[in-house]
């Protein structure tokens, strides 16, 4: 999996350095206010600073000693820094990842075409890539690095995209059609192409992505907003709790120090999730980027987690590349060897992968046919729908789909053998593609082509089914073949003989029943469907139109990437949910640490609530705030990596996460606070 591919340590030294610096920069209240939970902590910290200064200068110790207040202040400040650090390290990691991609395309020389006059006797001028504007054209020849994202308008070339995808095999890109897009930073290996710039400088997908991670353009997703509202409302409840405590304490004649008030408040509000929330969001996009998927927005990643239906192309996703010849079936009266020779001859000039596989299979059967200059090759045309060869001796060998050959045979006045008809039928029923071979207008036998289903794909679909995601296979095959492969691979539904509009209609149909649909596509004719789908992943090799229409771009051009994207989306939401639960569950223990500490001096009977038997009110309060602070960095790795998603069904997943993060969230702070109290007890 690509996720592992880019795995690096969570805390690289240089990143930590940047993040530490950013932790202080982010203390700026103007930045802080975006996070209401932590902003209130900042206000509390400032109040504590005032208390410390007051106690230090006036020697008035009614609010507790300078040391104690200073300790509380320090812990609160550290809490803020920890929260800032979490966000900063997530940003730094995302940025580093994006930078490493961007580095490949910085200031490459570009051979810009300067149009001269009406008649295009164009000049080529060497400029820096940063000077290229939208719709400019440039030339790339063998050995050139492509300076900018664009679309080929002239020529064909082999291109090494390993800088972006990590895949070493070169790919072919040509003008027109669905493979016309080139990415800046990749290298032309052969031939010459003219490319038109399709993006403004600084607006490539990668630039957008980097901006998203950096925070300048980062917008909160709807789900993040809803969660922030919930967390803010908790914060307000605890403001009410703490403010009203003052008159209550007055009534009970129990003086409560400012430090105690602020500690209670900071401990109760959900600082853990509040501090980690933006880090979780950034890390989600970062995980997508590490899987070589560029998400155009954080929302796209989240939506991926909600997907109900997944449209997958058969070729490349479910089956390995192309069909392969697997069997030769000759008719009665013709030796097998002879038929294989016929089949191989018919495919000698057939450059399609299917044709090549027939020659290969013949070779394995000991039949070695070679091209001969005397041979006259007949190419496939839309009219004849067959191809083949005319041999010098007058033999005419043709190969094609059943109906094409049947036409040819009947035209020649021969009958089409029943044996061949039934063979064709049985091959199709078993998911194969039959090709019939004829010689001089007589049907001679059938070649079986089979799809090879990717190993392990069944398990992946099973995993998706447990997530509640329905898989749909899209294929150009006939319904019979499609059904066979669908059953064998374990997809839930299929679209056979699919035309681009069929995809679109299927998506609309699913959406009409309220489902969210994800699909992957590359061609221009995929663009409408990509735009219609809730999650559209365009392949980087695809056309510009497809890339504009989708909300994610997959740099690897890997059709199975959709599955990973869904898991990344789910992981993002789960991480948010579990850490929220953990954060809120922590409150139980904190109440039992602080509330007795507040009152016990004046109401000794309330010692009964001190179920953790904390040493003194001061140590209890300090232990609670210290626990509250250190839990943030302890959870940063979890926030960055994400809580593991297990496809075990929603109910089981809820049970599991509730047990770990809910029940754990209640227990852990009891233990943590007690331990810290024991430690503090050694010094106090």
């Amino acid at each position, binding site marked *: 999996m690509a996720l592992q591919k880019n795995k690096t340590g969570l805390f690289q030294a240089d990143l930590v350095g940047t993040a530490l610096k950013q932790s202080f920069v982010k203390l700026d209240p103007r930045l802080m206010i975006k996070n209401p939970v932590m902003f209130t902590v900042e206000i509390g910290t400032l109040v504590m600073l005032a208390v410390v200064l007051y106690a230090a200068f006036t020697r008035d110790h009614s609010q507790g000693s300078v040391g104690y207040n200073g300790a509380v202040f320090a812990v609160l400040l550290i809490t803020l820094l920890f929260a800032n650090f979490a966000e900063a390290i997530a940003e730094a990691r995302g940025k580093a990842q994006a930078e490493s991609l961007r580095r490949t395309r910085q200031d490459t020389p570009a051979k810009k075409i300067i149009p001269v006059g009406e008649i295009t006797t164009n000049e080529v001028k060497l400029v820096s890539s940063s000077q290229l504007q939208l719709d400019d054209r440039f030339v790339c020849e063998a050995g050139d690095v492509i300076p900018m994202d664009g679309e080929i308008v002239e020529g064909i070339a082999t291109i090494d995209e390993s800088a972006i995808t990590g895949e070493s095999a070169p790919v072919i890109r040509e003008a027109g059609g669905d493979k016309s897009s080139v990415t800046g930073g990749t290298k032309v290996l052969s031939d010459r192409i003219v490319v038109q710039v399709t993006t403004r400088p600084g607006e490539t997908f990668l630039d957008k992505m980097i901006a998203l991670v950096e925070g300048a353009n980062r917008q909160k997703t*709807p789900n993040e907003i809803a969660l922030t509202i919930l967390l803010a409302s908790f914060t307000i409840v605890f403001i009410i*709790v703490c403010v009203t405590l003052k008159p*209550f304490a*007055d009534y009970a004649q129990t003086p409560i120090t400012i430090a105690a008030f602020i500690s209670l408040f900071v401990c109760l509000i959900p600082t853990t999730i509040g501090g980690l929330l933006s880090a979780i969001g950034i890390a989600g996009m970062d995980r997508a980027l590490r899987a070589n998927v560029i998400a155009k927005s954080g929302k796209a990643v989240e939506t991926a987690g909600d997907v109900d239906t997944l449209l997958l192309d058969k070729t490349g996703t479910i089956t390995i590349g192309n069909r392969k010849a697997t069997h030769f079936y000759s008719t009665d009266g013709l030796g097998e060897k002879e038929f294989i020779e016929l089949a191989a001859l018919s495919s000698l000039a057939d450059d399609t992968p299917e044709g090549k596989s027939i020659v290969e299979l013949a070779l394995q059967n000991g039949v070695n046919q070679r091209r001969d200059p005397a041979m006259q090759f007949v190419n496939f045309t839309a009219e004849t729908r067959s191809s083949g060869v005319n041999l010098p001796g007058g033999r005419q060998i043709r190969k094609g789909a059943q109906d094409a050959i049947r036409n040819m045979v009947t035209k020649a006045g021969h009958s089409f053998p029943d044996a061949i008809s039934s063979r064709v039928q049985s091959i199709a029923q078993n998911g194969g593609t039959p090709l019939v071979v004829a010689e001089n207008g007589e049907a001679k036998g059938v070649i079986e082509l089979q799809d090879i289903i990717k190993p392990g794909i069944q398990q992946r679909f099973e995993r998706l089914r447990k997530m509640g995601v329905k898989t749909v296979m899209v294929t150009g095959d006939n319904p019979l073949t499609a059904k066979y492969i669908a059953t064998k691979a374990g997809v839930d539904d299929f679209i056979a003989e699919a035309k681009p509009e069929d995809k679109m209609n299927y998506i609309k149909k699913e959406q009409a029943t309220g489902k969210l649909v994800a699909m992957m596509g590359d061609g221009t004719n995929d663009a409408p469907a990509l735009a219609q789908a809730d999650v559209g992943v365009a392949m980087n090799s695809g056309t510009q139109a497809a890339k504009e229409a989708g909300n994610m771009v997959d740099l690897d051009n890997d059709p199975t990437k959709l599955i990973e994207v869904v898991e990344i989306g789910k992981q993002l939401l789960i991480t948010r949910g579990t850490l929220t639960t953990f954060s809120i569950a922590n409150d139980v223990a904190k109440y039992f640490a602080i509330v007795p500490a507040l009152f016990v001096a004046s109401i000794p009977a309330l*010692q009964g609530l001190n179920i953790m038997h904390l040493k003194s009110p001061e140590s209890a309060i300090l232990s609670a705030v210290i626990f509250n602070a250190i839990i943030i960095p302890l959870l940063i790795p979890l926030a960055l990596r994400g809580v593991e*998603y297990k496809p075990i069904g929603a109910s089981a997943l*809820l049970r599991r996460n509730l047990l770990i993060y809910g029940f754990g969230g209640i227990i852990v702070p009891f233990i943590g606070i007690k331990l810290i109290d024991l430690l503090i007890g050694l010094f106090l």
Partner: protein
Amino acid sequence: MNKEILGILLTYGLTILLAIPLGKAIARWLNGERSAWNAMAPLEHLIYRLAGVNPAEEMNWKQHLKALLTINLVWFAYGFFMLIFQGSLPLNPDGNPSQSPDLAFNTVISFIVNCDLQHYSGESGLTYLTQVFVASFFQFVSAASGIAALFVLFRALRSKVTHQLGNFWVFFVQSITRILLPLAFVVAVILALSGTPASWAGKDSIATLQGDSVQVSRGPAAAMIAIKQLGTNGGGWFGANSAHPLENPNYLTNMVEAISILLVPVALVFALGFYLKKQRLSRVIYAVMTVGFVVLVSLAVSQEIAGSPVISKLGIAQGSGSMEGKEVRFGAAATGYWSIVTTATSNGSVNGMHDSTMPLSGFAQILDMMINAFYGGVGVGLLNYFVFLIIAVFISGLMVGRTPEFLGRKIEAREMKIAALVAILHPLLILAGTALSSHILVHHPGAAWAVKPGAWLNNPGYHGYSEMLYEYTSSAANNGSGFEGLADNNLFWNISCGFVLILGRYLPIIGPVAIAGILAGKKWTPESAGTLKSDSYTFGLMTFAVIVIIAALSFFPALALGPLAEYFSINK
């Protein structure tokens, strides 16, 4: 087994036995199926005709709320003038005086909002006219308002993508004609046969055993007592409420009344499941509520049976438990049970003095009202629960890796905002109210008011604090019971509680109905294996945790200074 405990179990068992078929019957009629209810149709149609209402008109959630709030405002004006002029109006055989404007404000508000916080005694504070045509009338219509609001939620949860959520007036009228009136009739007959007065005559005069002549108040009480319980209103005919021998003559009537309190709130929980055809959802909600209820009942009953440790230390046996402020004909256990039943449901009628219960019983009573969703008041209890449920759905939805959704609708920022607002409101009203009164009491005890703040409390210390906390909690929860040591019939308490009552009633109705209405208009997504199951017990546990951590724990410091401090002090 202890006979007293057996009595409680029997009472609760009968409640459930009656609630399930009632819930089923309500669901059938809401579904438009023909049933015995249809006998009421002619009466209902007469009412619609007289009121000029078109029962076929479909309303969206905003129209529902507009109708509810408008009619409530009309009643407020009507009730207020009746009370301040009742002394000069007919049907006043005992010659009771008119109410002062601030008391009338508090009384009308508290009856309209289904609270019945009575800062007066029924015998002397109201006339027969206002008892029947203000108090009892409001007890019917306030209960019906709550039920009608809940039916909007029912409708919203069932239908797929709609803004048409039924007709408020139909829901409202039918709640009275089909639930409250028939049940109230049965209960009133049982009460009247057991000795509760049902007469228009004025005070009676009897000679006591000592030979004195005593004036005994009476009136058409049985009818009002029936609806006060069934509508979770709680406002009694007599000042002593259901502890009064004429209001609650014997153990049987005590059982009947205790059953009446819980019956409709529990039946509505079951009705939800039958109506939505999601009985598992109902069972889970019922289970969550019941766990909370049973915990609190066990606490209160065990405390009351055990008696006071202070008295035990004196070497005095308390064979029948703590009997201070209790009626001998009910005993400690039945009173403890009742105290939780009445605080759970926002009823507020009492059959003993809550002020005299043990500290932890008081703790359980106050906590019960702070949560206000373990069954809760008729209609509104389930609406309150719905808010917690939405919050639980949001958090657990995330935990299973999907944008949170409830019954196929996504929970987004707008719904979260409303739910959060309602969730904040309750602690705000209770804590801010108590803080205000504590502040005045501490810093201005001698203010020149009719009742000086320094004289508010009957008891000093923790218990005095509990009395104030109880009063605002009871107001915010629209409960209406009180720790009666508090001198509450004066300007400060009448007005401050009046505003808490209004906010505590209408916002928690508006919020959930708005959420439901918005959800009903949203895209509907079918369930898949990845969808959170809101009818699983795991999710029930999550909801319970949300209730405990959000609703209960925010009050922990306040409770620590009141009942908990008192408990730890006498149990040293």
